[in-house]
């Protein structure tokens, strides 16, 4: 019950802060609209208002603040507006029987999800194989690990267009493959780091014990190192799938893609429809939450089955 209240308090605080921010964020747009509607505002000219801070504008035009909570194109929409837009582009589309229409976030989410999952599978594979190589070979450890770290310092936004150009040069049709690669690029790293730690987690005495059995390297890997790494793997996978989703969305941003949540965000920006951007952002956040939660459930079930459930 105490936990419930804590969760509720944080949620409430976020919503309250959000509502408080809507006023100052939208005051200029509100006053522009009021001016156009012929209502009295101070200062009267839009250009003069640019020189005045939002706080003074709010103080001088207190009766227009409320207008900011119901704009068509607000700079910051209210939670209710975002919720309505989300509903319009998801639930309502389903009711209309067109869940896969180009205007539906379900369609765009599905496009993003596919790339995310491919990127996740690819990144996880690369991460696990890389970790095995690093753990078993000092040479690989010293030659590969620095590059793995460097790879994560390169801004993915800069890299994404290059990957797309490169893949079209190589004659790869469509955006699915390059998006998955960008996504895998972000996803492999947490898996690699986590698995290296996990595969190295057995104590020296555990490895000594296997030596006294004259166990082969493969047996030591399968019976000790791999099972020891499972808790580490799941922690990494949860970070990895969120990173994969971010990678996919970034891959959809700068590339003129027309479908996917990233494309919705970009298009919303270009066409000046902030509600569409916010709805896409929330759809992405919800998608990430669902994916991480699913992995969390798989983790709990697996660890409990392995006798390591907390």
């Amino acid at each position: 019950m105490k936990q419930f209240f804590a969760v509720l308090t944080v949620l409430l605080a976020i919503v309250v802060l959000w509502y408080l921010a809507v006023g100052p964020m939208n005051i200029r747009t509100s006053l522009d609209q009021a001016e156009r509607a012929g209502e009295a505002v101070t200062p009267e000219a839009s250009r003069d208002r640019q020189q005045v801070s939002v706080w003074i504008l709010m103080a001088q035009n207190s009766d227009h603040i409320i207008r900011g909570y119901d704009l068509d194109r607000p700079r910051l929409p209210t939670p209710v507006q975002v919720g309505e837009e989300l509903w319009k582009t998801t639930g309502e589309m389903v009711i209309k029987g067109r869940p896969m229409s180009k205007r539906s976030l379900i369609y765009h989410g599905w496009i993003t999800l596919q790339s995310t999952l491919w990127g996740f599978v690819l990144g996880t594979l690369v991460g696990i194989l890389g970790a095995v190589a690093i753990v078993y070979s000092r040479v690989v450890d010293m030659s590969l690990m620095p590059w793995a770290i460097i790879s994560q310092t390169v801004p993915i936004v800069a890299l994404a267009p290059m990957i797309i150009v490169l893949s079209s040069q190589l004659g790869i049709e469509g955006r699915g493959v390059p998006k998955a690669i960008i996504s895998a690029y972000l996803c492999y790293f947490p898996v690699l780091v986590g698995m290296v730690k996990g595969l190295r987690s057995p104590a020296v005495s555990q490895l000594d014990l296997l030596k006294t059995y004259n166990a082969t390297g493969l047996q030591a890997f399968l019976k000790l190192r791999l099972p020891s790494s499972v808790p580490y793997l799941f922690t990494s996978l949860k970070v990895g799938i969120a990173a994969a989703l971010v990678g996919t969305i970034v891959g959809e941003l700068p590339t003129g893609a027309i479908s996917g949540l990233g494309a919705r965000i970009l298009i919303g920006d270009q066409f000046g429809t902030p509600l569409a951007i916010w709805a896409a952002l929330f759809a992405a956040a919800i998608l990430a939450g669902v994916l991480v939660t699913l992995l969390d459930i798989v983790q709990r079930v697996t660890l409990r089955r392995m006798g390591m459930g907390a």
Partner: protein
Amino acid sequence: MNTESTTQPVIEARQLDLTFQTNDGPIHALKDVNLTIDKGDFVSFIGPSGCGKTTFLRCIAALETPTGGSLTVNGMTPDEARRNRAYGYVFQAAGLYPWRTIAKNIKLPLEIMGYSAAEQEERVRKVLELVDLDGFGGKFPWQLSGGMQQRASIARALAFDADILLMDEPFGALDEIVRDHLNEQLLALWARTEKTIGFVTHSIPEAVYLSTKIVVMSPRPGRITDVIDSPLPKERPLDIRDTPEFIEIAHRVRDGLRAGHSYDD
């Protein structure tokens, strides 16, 4: 292995030397160690930290390589003996795999050594009974007390047919009451299985109570200062520890330890 002649010692060390190269210079872990262990002996190694008792046990197990002298196990080099699975090793930490049940933990060496499934079942049943854990095979390690976990780890070392059991402070982390109980059980187990046991300990009463041969060691460099053949009978109830013979041996061990220590001061 039972067909081997009884005259051959199970473990024989001659002028054994081991020097570790560390960043702080060489450490002389073992110096001129001479020791013969016969079949069926229960040998305790006792001494302060750094006296090389664990190192010597690890040499027998081929987990360390001596830098001088000779060491044979069952007439072979330690590494050959290891590859022939001549011994079971029990570490201070039970080291059971948390993702395996007790039965599956005991099966670990059997799986690695390629025993058939039926044989594995049979052996698990047998050793669980031997360490008094029947009925606990399906439990996970965390469901067992520390003493029970250590018994399971002994069962794991007994599951395959090694006639040597090497134990590195197996009861070091347990409280004294549990320890007494396990010592009694270990003696019973030793009597039933007729294994040769090498046992590292910090505790004088434990060493005297368990052993047929007590090896007193001292540090810097790690060496043997005294080897005591115990006159105590094989049958040892716990109250044997109040007899004059017991107290006399304990005295001798304590004197040996003190003599070794005087070099430090």
